[in-house]
């Protein structure tokens, strides 16, 4: 394996807009909101940026294609801006571009910014995607909830779980994220819910009800990265560095070869294994302090616990119901409310996850602050269970 980028890149500053139904703001205003907070946190101004990476998924309802929307909205100093798109993992992809630029020495200071303006469609939920001229002629008629709900059927069959037990665990996941989101003044959904509410919600895609689905939100998140040395020179305290950053993409085997059983994410397992190796983590369940996973749907969170090697295979339901991942549990998960309640402006989500881990490691998470976390992990996923992009990032205090 390559030497990796452990401790080569530091986070200089981060910002995140308020997420939600931002009727008053367009993508440009959301970008500026996140950018200004990140600049303030970094203690620099825009002229010090060497390059930027910009992530957004639905260019047709956001700002169009290319890097120009970011360069223009932020009046960047005529630097290189690259637009990246990798489904719901686009934010992690932007972060990866900026981090690799700094790690390579090509840039001293780089910006990653993700945005999504979803609430200009006229209806709830995400717009459909076409997938190209051939896929449109044969691919199954689906939505995101219906695609991810497929996991539930295979997981139940594989582990012999009743629908009732599965639904209870899924409800616990959503109740926990709502409780966490209530403490986050930037979150989209801030009302706690009960297990009964989750269980009795209207059906969206069997077995997922309304409360099993994350918020469809507007928002932006930004991250400025540099080397640990420059961060120190600029007076940064409690420096947080990148320990690992790994992506894994499906190559069609889950969708086309009978070796995959449909109950887990093949790519998440690969990205997690590589990330732990890059970060030097041997026992994830003991070493990871906290994490944000891609809880687009409650069932995604459930199976991801196992794919990240935090729960034993088939053991996630017990861990979830035992409160292992609650805010007071052993490894708190979605401390900021997650996609579920903080919200899911697609291009921003990967960076939003890092924002919470960074705040926690910087001891600036306010009412959500955990007790002395050391290692924070993000898991950002795009696509569907059978064909997807999985990104795992690990950050922690500089060594």
């Amino acid at each position, binding site marked *: 394996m390559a030497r990796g980028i452990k401790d080569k890149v530091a986070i200089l500053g981060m910002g995140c807009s308020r997420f939600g139904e931002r009727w008053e703001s367009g993508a440009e205003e959301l970008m500026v909101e996140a950018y200004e907070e990140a600049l303030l946190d970094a203690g620099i101004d825009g002229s010090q940026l060497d390059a930027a990476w910009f992530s957004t998924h639905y260019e047709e309802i956001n700002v169009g294609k290319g890097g120009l929307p970011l360069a223009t909205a932020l009046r960047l100093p005529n630097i290189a801006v690259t637009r990246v798109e990798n489904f719901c993992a686009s934010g992690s992809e932007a972060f990866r571009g900026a981090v690799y630029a700094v790690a390579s020495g090509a840039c001293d200071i780089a910006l990653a910014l993700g945005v999504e303006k979803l609430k200009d469609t006229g209806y709830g939920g995400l*717009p*459909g995607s076409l997938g190209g001229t051939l896929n449109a002629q*044969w691919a199954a008629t689906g939505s995101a909830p219906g*695609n991810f709900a497929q996991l539930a*059927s295979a997981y139940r069959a594989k582990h012999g779980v009743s629908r009732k037990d599965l639904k209870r665990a899924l409800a616990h996941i959503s109740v926990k994220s709502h409780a966490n989101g209530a403490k986050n003044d930037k979150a989209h959904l801030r009302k706690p819910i009960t297990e009964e509410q989750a269980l009795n919600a209207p059906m*969206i895609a069997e077995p997922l009800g309304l409360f099993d689905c994350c918020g469809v939100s507007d928002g932006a998140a930004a991250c400025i990265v540099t080397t640990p040395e420059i961060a120190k020179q600029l007076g940064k305290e409690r420096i947080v560095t990148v320990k690992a950053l790994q992506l894994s993409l499906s190559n069609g*085997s889950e969708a086309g070869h009978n070796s995959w059983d*449909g109950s887990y994410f093949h790519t998440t397992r690969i990205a997690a294994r590589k990330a732990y190796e890059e970060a030097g983590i041997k026992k994830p369940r003991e070493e990871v302090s906290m994490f944000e996973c891609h809880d687009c749907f409650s069932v995604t969170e459930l199976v991801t616990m196992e794919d990240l090697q935090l729960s034993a295979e088939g053991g996630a339901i017990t861990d979830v119901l035992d409160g292992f991942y609650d805010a007071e549990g052993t490894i708190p998960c979605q401390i900021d409310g997650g996609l579920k309640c903080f919200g899911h402006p697609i291009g921003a989500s990967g960076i939003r996850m890092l924002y919470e881990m960074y705040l926690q490691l910087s001891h600036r998470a306010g009412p959500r602050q955990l007790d002395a976390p050391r290692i924070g992990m993000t898991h950002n996923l795009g696509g569907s269970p059978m064909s997807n992009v999985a990104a795992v990032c690990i950050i922690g205090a500089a060594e």
Partner: protein
Amino acid sequence: MAGISAYGAYVPRLRLARSAIAAAHQWSDPSFKGKGKGERAIANWDEDAITMAVEAARDCLAHGAAPGPEASASLDALYLASTTLPFADRQNAGIVATALSLDGQRRTLDITGSQRAGTTALLEALHAVSGPYSDQALVVGTDKRPAKVASAGELAYGDGAAALLVEEGEGLLTFLAGVTETTDFVDHFRGAGEAFDYTWEERWIRDEGISQIVPEAVNAVLAKAGVEASAIDHFIFPSTIGRAADGVAKSVGIKAEALGDNLSATLGECGTAHALVMLSHLLEGGLKPGALVLVAAFGQGCDALLFRATEAAAAPQGKLGVRGHLALGKTSDNYMQYLAFNDLVTLEKGMRAERDDYKTALSVTYRKRDMLLALEGGKCTQCGTLQFPRTDICVNPQCGAHHTQEPHSFRDSKASVLTWSADYLTYIPNPPSHYGMITFEDGGRFMTDFTDVDVGELDVGTPVKMMFRIKSRDGLRGFVRYFWKAVPQRGQDA
């Protein structure tokens, strides 16, 4: 000598109780009160004359004595009869042929324009095989007849298709003689581009049309074969007009017991397909060797065909047929659903239905025609892995060989459900949208739409079979996209 050597049929799973139609219209026309008897077959939203034709042809070719499509090297012609074909200019028979892997150097033609198109197609095939022009021909009749709301047709019609294989030799039914009488008698018409039929008075049609024209053709065919009318054992003559067939039989001297079930109580009248549907239905019961079968159909004249049953007709061929499909029916009293499926009411479909993404890249449709229409994937000649779609590089992670795949159709392969969901968010004309991953018994898988499925019916492991269906319609440009969907195997179908 030519004969019919195999038969098959397709009837959509959904049946609409006529009582539901009658109940909907009694407020405006009290005469509907007495018309609510029995049920009629209705196509699902994703079925049309082409999809039903493909399924009837598969029933005819796939089971029993007839060879499967791949083995049908001698099949050199496909006749598709219907007056409700989805394309006015794109050969519909060519779509059916490609779906069955019967494209290439074969004659394919659409026969349309009259309610006797089904019998005309059969007659043409028999003549071609009797002569030097054809060895084996497939004749498919199919119709999904549109009817105005509260019209007589709405009650009388049924959606369905039947297929007959015609080849040299005696077959099950040996062809003795055929006659066509052409008379421009306009009992009804549908102008080019019009959605519905315009029909004249029933009594005039019966007394001046059927009673005059049909006996002439029937008598002519009997004379041609030297057969007495009283010797006819089975007389098939479809008509939506009550007792029209009895009247013809009586006037020419065919015995009353020769008239079989016209399927109006259970299926409805399938237009051009109906004579073939009734013939398939008759053959499915097994026929006494030597029995004489007379088939006639009316439409701007009359076709009359005479057959004699052979020893081979005594035992049923084991097709699903009309009987099998009727047994698999699901009766519904949801009249509004029927209206919605047939675009007979303006529905609020929600913004999700608005997406104009249905322009079809025809160059892609052509390049991938075997994949899209014949469900052809690949088999890796290096590792043996079956896969869909066929690509340049093998999908097996342990193999990955380049350019090793030979064509393999999954059309007739058995499969089961690996994952599924019932999705209430996605727009589909028949919610919830069921879709999921299916795995084929011998290898291969893909994410598919399920159709003809009830809520709560699917589970991991549920056996399914593939059916040819409408994938989507492009209303703006009038195009229909076809692909295959998975349907749960049920009853004698399994």
